[in-house]
């Protein structure tokens, strides 16, 4: 039987989340947001800085989630889009004196275009082959950034130092606190946009492709358009995260954006739960804080400890934090009854 005839309702490559469950309820969301706004009142500057990084990686993981959870495509090349966003912000700020806020939409738009164009040839690939192509992109990016021709702009191997912005309007808060709130607001906006997107006509078309390409095209969905669009949207969102990252860390250098970052983001998505958007926060916490934890357990073997923790987590909850969240939801329902 041909693949066409055999288009039975088979399990898709990505065990995805039913669409109604991609986000948190209003009440839970509000509580999380209040908590996030309240944290700087209690925390030290260093913790606040770490939380900013946490939010930034959560945006990048959310972006990957739109691609994989939404459209069913894989990417190990997110570090390349992140780097492009970071360098765009850094170069605009340091060479052209552009305000840091304005560099973010530019980084997003540029990465969207780049991701869309990359997605075009990638259309011919699927699954593991697509992952390989994006892997190639991730390995190439740091070397491209070191190239002599771009050195005047990128600073070559040295990278660029980025000026940390002060709080505006003479607000009496530290740079770190300001940056945290700035990142938090952008994260919330991106999160809301992503939830809207996945619940819209565009999002449904992407998920239809993820579940069954042939049926999707019979319904009038332009499969290649929506697949590349998913790449573009994911890359653009990652670019904004990269730009924010450059501003927060005050530094960009090629070796900050190796394949390791791409793998970390991928891990974060899996630990958070593929297709479950709030899981991006959990996944990000995993990749930001667990390595520190591992370091505390054993300096020399921190990598091994991290690996062991990862294996335990994947073994206990293969569907990531989303599985835990559903379990809790079930228990809460039972208690209410």
């Amino acid at each position, binding site marked *: 039987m041909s693949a066409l*005839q055999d288009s039975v309702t088979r399990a898709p490559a990505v065990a995805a989340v039913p669409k109604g469950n991609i986000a948190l309820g209003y009440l839970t969301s509000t509580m999380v947001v209040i908590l996030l706004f309240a944290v700087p009142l209690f925390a030290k500057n260093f913790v606040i800085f770490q939380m900013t990084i946490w939010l930034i990686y959560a945006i990048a993981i959310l972006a990957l989630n739109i691609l994989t959870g939404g459209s069913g495509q894989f990417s190990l090349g997110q570090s390349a889009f992140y780097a492009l966003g970071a360098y765009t912000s850094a170069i605009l700020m340091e060479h052209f004196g552009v305000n840091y806020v304005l560099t973010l939409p530019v980084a997003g738009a540029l990465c969207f275009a780049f991701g869309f164009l990359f997605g075009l040839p990638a259309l011919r690939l699927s699954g593991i082959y697509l992952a390989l192509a994006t892997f190639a992109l991730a390995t190439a990016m740091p070397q491209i950034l070191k190239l002599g021709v771009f050195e005047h702009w990128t600073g070559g191997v040295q990278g660029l130092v980025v000026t940390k912005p002060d709080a505006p309007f003479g607000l009496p808060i530290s740079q770190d606190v300001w940056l945290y709130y700035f990142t938090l607001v952008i994260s919330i906006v991106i999160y809301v946009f*992503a939830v809207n997107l996945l619940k*819209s006509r565009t999002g449904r078309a992407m998920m239809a492709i993820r579940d069954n390409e042939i049926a999707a095209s019979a319904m009038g969905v332009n499969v290649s358009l929506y697949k590349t669009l998913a790449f573009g949207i994911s890359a653009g969102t990652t670019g904004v995260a990269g730009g924010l990252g450059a501003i927060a860390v005050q530094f960009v250098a090629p070796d900050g954006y190796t394949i390791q970052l791409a793998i970390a983001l991928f891990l974060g998505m899996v630990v958070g739960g593929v297709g479950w958007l709030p899981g991006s926060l959990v996944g990000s916490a995993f990749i930001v804080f667990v390595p520190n934890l591992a370091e505390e357990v054993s300096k020399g073997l921190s990598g091994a400890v991290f690996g062991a923790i990862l294996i335990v987590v994947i073994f206990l909850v293969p569907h990531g934090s989303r599985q835990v969240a559903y379990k809790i939801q079930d228990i809460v329902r039972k208690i209410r009854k």
Partner: protein
Amino acid sequence: MQQTDVARAKAPLLAVRDVSVVFGGIVALNGVSFDMHRGQILGLIGPNGAGKTTLFNCLSRLYQPSKGDILMEGDSILARPAHRIAEIGIGRTFQNVALFPNLSVLDNVRVGTHSRTRSNFITDSIRPPWVGRAEAATTKRVDDILGYLDLREVAHVPVAGLPFGTQKRVELARALAAEPKILLLDEPAGGLNHEEVYGLGDLIRKIRDDRGITVLLVEHHMGLVMSIADHVVALNFGRKLAEGTPAQVQSDPDVIKAYLGSKDA
């Protein structure tokens, strides 16, 4: 101008002209021609491997005929990519059910409206009021169809867990959501029990009568085809064997021979 309109109204809604499809060495369709007229229920019969699904896949532009043409309201569809077939009013179901397993019934059917709606990813993300209103209108239309096919109760259930018969109704609902002029049904009775099959026959007729949809029905179940089709085309080994009213085709010696010679008739 008027004359061409008149000509169009008289012309067949869908014309299959001398269509051949070859896979490697196998000739799956060999010079098949027939017309479909508005409001007809046309039954396409033939033993397993006769080429019925292949013909459907040509009509949905999943397969490219090596010869011949297919005209919808007088215009060739062969220049269109597969995703631009729904918009000219050709809708279909699949022999083995091809739904979106992780999506709810509601969302499966909403995807069916894709070719009849417009949006872009930017406003879909920002969701201004007019996008919300358009979504509400879509949901309303989809809800009507769910009611029509008795699917409201499972609207929010992911389709993967539903019984096969219900999945087939979801597929029908999804096809109707695209407001087709022609509905291609590939073995809709497959996997249904005796009672369900006759319910299905009534439903197909009802859809034609209520919505004025022309139906191309591929079916193994002879009883069903003969009871609801206005016109029957019989295929065997990729060739048209006979064509006519159900009674004519049923008494055709070639058809009888083809069916007696085949175990799955």
